[in-house]
């Protein structure tokens, strides 16, 4: 009985492994699909987006009217992000703006904001060290030193701290 159980366990393991292997080749494409889904999900103006995601994704974050808003992981703040240029430049250092407000819409002033990010699928960080040093007023902060040196899936992550309130958010950007 023990031998039969072991054999069955072995077959089950094999099945699971073969499933993982057989699906591995499609994982990258799957990640891309999920990524696109996230873009749709998080974009305020998703209804405006063209069916050809690849064609228009660079413009999704460009300028304030195309800003993308997400709720922080701890639910304290609503964070809106947009690039100060449109389309998003490739291979050149430029600035973004991050707007932070409370859930009921009050601008969050003088918070400590830390920005970092990179290309998770390639396991590397930004090719620059971006910074958030300047508070622009009305809950807006300048994100300086952003550079996308290659096309692909990027993440821009923010840690926000004001007093005891901490929040974090990850924006996904497809160049």
């Amino acid at each position, binding site marked *: *009985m023990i031998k039969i159980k072991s054999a069955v366990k072995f077959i089950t393991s094999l*099945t699971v492994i073969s*499933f993982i292997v057989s699906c591995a080749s*499609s994982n990258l494409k799957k990640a891309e699909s999920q990524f696109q889904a996230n873009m749709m999900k998080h974009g305020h103006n998703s209804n405006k987006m063209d069916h050809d995601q690849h064609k228009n994704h660079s413009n999704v974050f460009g300028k304030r009217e195309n800003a993308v808003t997400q709720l922080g992981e701890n639910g304290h703040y609503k964070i809106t992000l947009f690039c100060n240029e449109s389309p998003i430049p490739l*291979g050149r*250092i430029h600035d973004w703006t991050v707007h932070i407000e409370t859930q009921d819409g009050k601008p969050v002033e003088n918070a400590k904001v830390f920005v970092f990010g990179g290309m998770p699928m390639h396991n590397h*960080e930004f090719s620059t060290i971006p910074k958030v040093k300047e508070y622009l007023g009305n809950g807006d902060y300048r994100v300086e030193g952003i550079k996308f040196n290659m096309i692909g899936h990027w993440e821009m992550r923010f840690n926000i701290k004001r007093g005891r309130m901490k929040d974090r958010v990850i924006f996904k950007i497809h160049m």
Partner: protein
Amino acid sequence: MKNLVILLSVTISLSSLIACVGNTKKMPNEEVASKKMSIHNWSEREVRILESLSLYNAKPKQDKTNRVVNNADAAKLGQKLFFDKRFSTDGTVACASCHKPKLFFTDGLPQAVGLSKTTRNAPSIVGASNNTWFFLDGRVDSLWSQALHPIENTLEHGNNRSQFAKVIFNDPELKKDYEKVFGPLPDISNKSRFPDNAGPIRVREIKKAWKNMAPADQKIITDIFVNGGKAIAAYETLLQPAPSRFDKYVKAVSNNDAEKIQSLLNKDEVAGLDIFLDKGKCFICHNGPMFSDQGFHNIGTPPLNVKKYDFGRSKAVRRVKKNPFNCLSEYNDSKDKSCDELKYIVIHEEETMAAFKTPSLRNVTKTGPYMHGGQYKTLSEVIKHYNDPPATKVGMNKLLDIDLTDEEMAQLEAFLKTLDSPIAADPSLLTAPN
């Protein structure tokens, strides 16, 4: 019990299968499907990517830190300096010794040889003016400051800036050319104020002579030295790659010119291009019209010397920040001193350790041996490295897995050969001036 476990096993297996099928169905890649109809039938996105690689759409970088970069007289002077061996300590080495026009401005050697053998491969300077960082580790941030470095490097020209200035000062023709661009040369004939050999280099007597000079006199010599570098950069900026068969193909694709599309690239070359963009993941770093993201990556290249690793970018970031000729220095001719690349430079060792600059792939067949130390003689060896990289000796190898067949590797190499092109410069620029 036994039946239950078997049933469970079958259920898992079935659900796995369904999940897999489901995944496939969720990812209909219409672009790929449509491309199957014809090897030249690129999707709209792919056409956009192809156009981003084309020289026809390139915007040459303008170096604002060099006020004479577009000055024809400066380029003429620069060409003379580039080929002149008198700027080396024993009169045997010129810039052209390691950057030979016939070898697409490389030397064909694994490691460059000046006065002695160096530890790095000599990169081509054709199109180098479009770079953000210079040298394979990016230890300087302008083409003109790059040109100065080998002159004071003991392994290359082994010279010093005082001797450099004096060669120009004492040669009536060079002096005339210099003054035409930069104005009157100060009188540096007084040897007690301006020793024949002086400079801030690692040779004791020369360094001592430099320290004994008055700061104002040091400045006079350094100004001439820097101007010489800017003239060389003006010459080098004229050395650009001409459009290749690949660029013409992209133009034909953009114009939907069926006849040219068919004739410019063959089946294997198009398959290689597809691999370059997709399965081979080459495009991730080799992008833009020069096929370089201007970034630094550790790709696990075997070290030349296991007892003395080359740490590449991780050391260079400290050097470029301290470089007296960097963008933040007084020698930057631009009013804009924002110097963003230096301001936001990555210093983390996990990103920079043993990382080297992504080289251009234009005329890659003419610029071997390959990698920072010339580790590989042929392109096929390089492609094999990417396909099956050896265990990393230092830092973290950032290469992504690719799994190319022998046929695919051959197709990729076939595509790379389509990037061959002449140098888009007057033939008189490709030889030593009279």
